[in-house]
């Protein structure tokens, strides 16, 4: 089993944000998670990434329970998450962001030999240049590579978030509304990047409200409402389901 959530529940005081969610993700697929605002989608991703701890339930990553693991351990194990509101190191440049995000591949590549690179003038960065260049090119961030992240457009910030996650070489990439707030061109660019990732073997789990974009991209969809899973299946079927339309638009539209 690649990834599985079993009876996952998160309560914040009296509010149950995620309620008894059970689902699995297979290697290589793109899973979309739909649901209106407040349906618990972001909480779900935060639970998987280890940013918050579930009240109940299990998270199995390659048959190992990862509940209670620190986020950096989960990232090192292969699950990386991007943020809905771009999280950046504001004053650093785009290139510096990617160099920081290269921490995990460098760790995998060199292990404890990283300590030896401290003695060298380049600090062991030479090995990463090629990968950094590839990600910059793919995400179309080459032109702004030496600009401070604080000066990027909103779309640029979001793309940088995806680019950093790519540098981590995750096996399962969790994307929290990557297309929200993006222009048409930027969405197309994102679509291209995500397909490239899938083609290179990365499994994706994506939340977004742009149902057209995500419906075309995803292999499978899960719809959530009030923290519960209401339906799971092919995206077209899920989006046409009466309960999903009702959750989004209210009773009477279904």
């Amino acid at each position, binding site marked *: 089993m690649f990834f599985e959530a079993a009876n996952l529940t998160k309560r914040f005081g009296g509010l149950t944000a995620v309620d008894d969610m059970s689902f699995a993700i297979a290697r290589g697929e793109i899973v979309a998670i739909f649901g209106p605002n407040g349906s618990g989608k972001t909480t779900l991703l935060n639970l998987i*990434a280890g*940013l918050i701890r579930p009240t109940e339930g299990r998270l199995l990553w390659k048959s190992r329970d990862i509940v209670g693991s*620190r*986020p*950096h351990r989960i*990232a*090192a194990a292969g699950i*990386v*998450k991007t*943020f809905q509101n771009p*999280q*950046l*190191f*504001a*004053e*650093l440049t785009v290139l*510096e962001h990617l*160099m*920081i*995000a*290269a*921490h*995990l591949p*460098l*760790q995998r590549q060199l292990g404890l030999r*990283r300590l030896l*690179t*401290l*003695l060298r003038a380049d*600090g*062991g*960065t030479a090995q990463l240049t090629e990968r950094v260049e590839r990600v910059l090119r793919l995400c179309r961030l080459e032109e702004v590579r030496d600009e401070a992240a604080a000066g990027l457009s909103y779309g640029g910030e979001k793309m940088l978030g995806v680019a*950093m*996650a790519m*540098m*981590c070489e995750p096996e399962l990439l969790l994307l929290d509304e990557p297309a929200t707030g993006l222009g048409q061109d930027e969405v197309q660019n994102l679509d291209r990047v995500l397909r490239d990732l899938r083609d290179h073997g990365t499994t994706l789990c994506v939340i977004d409200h742009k149902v057209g974009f995500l419906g075309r991209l995803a292999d499978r969809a899960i719809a959530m409402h009030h923290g519960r899973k209401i339906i799971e299946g092919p995206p077209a079927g899920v989006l046409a389901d009466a309960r999903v339309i009702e959750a989004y638009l209210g009773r009477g539209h279904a």
Partner: protein
Amino acid sequence: MKAGLAWLPLFAVPFLVHNEVALTILIFTYILGILAVSFNLIFGYTGQLSMFHAAAFGIAAYVTQLSMAYLGVSFWIGMVIAVLAVSVLSVIVGTICFRFKLREFYFAIVTLAFSEMVRLVILNWNSVTNGSLGINLTSKPTLWLPTGKVITVEGTMAWYYLSLVALLLTVLVCTRVVRSWMGRCFAAIRLNDQLADTLGINVFLYKLVSFLVGNAGAAVAGALYAFYLGYIEPGYLSIDQSLAIVAMALLGGRDSMAGPIIGAFILTALPHVINLGAEMRIMVYGFILMLTILLLPKGIVGLVARRRRGAPGLLAALVKPRDVL
């Protein structure tokens, strides 16, 4: 490379300047520079406002002297023991603070509390530390020259070069660290530790490493300072000393290696330029700190870096605006 050349004139200073006071100020600047640069690794680069730095400085001064007195070892072995002792303490204090995720002023207050605990122990453990009277140090470090000759480090010239080389080594080590992947982890933690965590950076570990390496630098400074001055007292660990270190980093600028050294120089030279009593000095420190924060958030280095575009030169080479990454 250019920044390396900027060090050369400092080696020539004793041949050009024969003023004892000026050279003494420079020796203190170099030793306190080690203290300030190592502090800035924790503060400026990793973003943790440690108030433990004066404690690491003072503990090392005592441990060096006490190991020489009780174990009969040389100054250098005593210094190594001091660095090890400070490292062990740093791991304990750091683990407590970083496990509980203490940030900013919470971290400052708890590290300050640890410093005060150690200071009170030293102050009251009369039989070993001689309490508030302190200890007069009569021995001096010795050096083995490549020719086989053994010299005692005494007098201004010997101390000048010893302290300059020690500072140079500290800056070299710190520069290597901050320009490496480890320095990138420090920067990531300073700027957004939650993001660093999700990118697979072990925030706890690298905060601890930064704290440990920084305090080890303070330990070296403490041993040198004590034996140059020839006197140790609990005041080494005082809050005033901690604040003076913060002032050095803020005044010079915390985004570079040169900043804290420039800050150390100004705060060392100031009492000689304007004649001040000890109490007045603290007031001046506080005043400078306030003015710097209000007028020069990036310190003197930030000011120079802003103006340097038209005028490359020795100062510009020495003052690199940002050594991170």
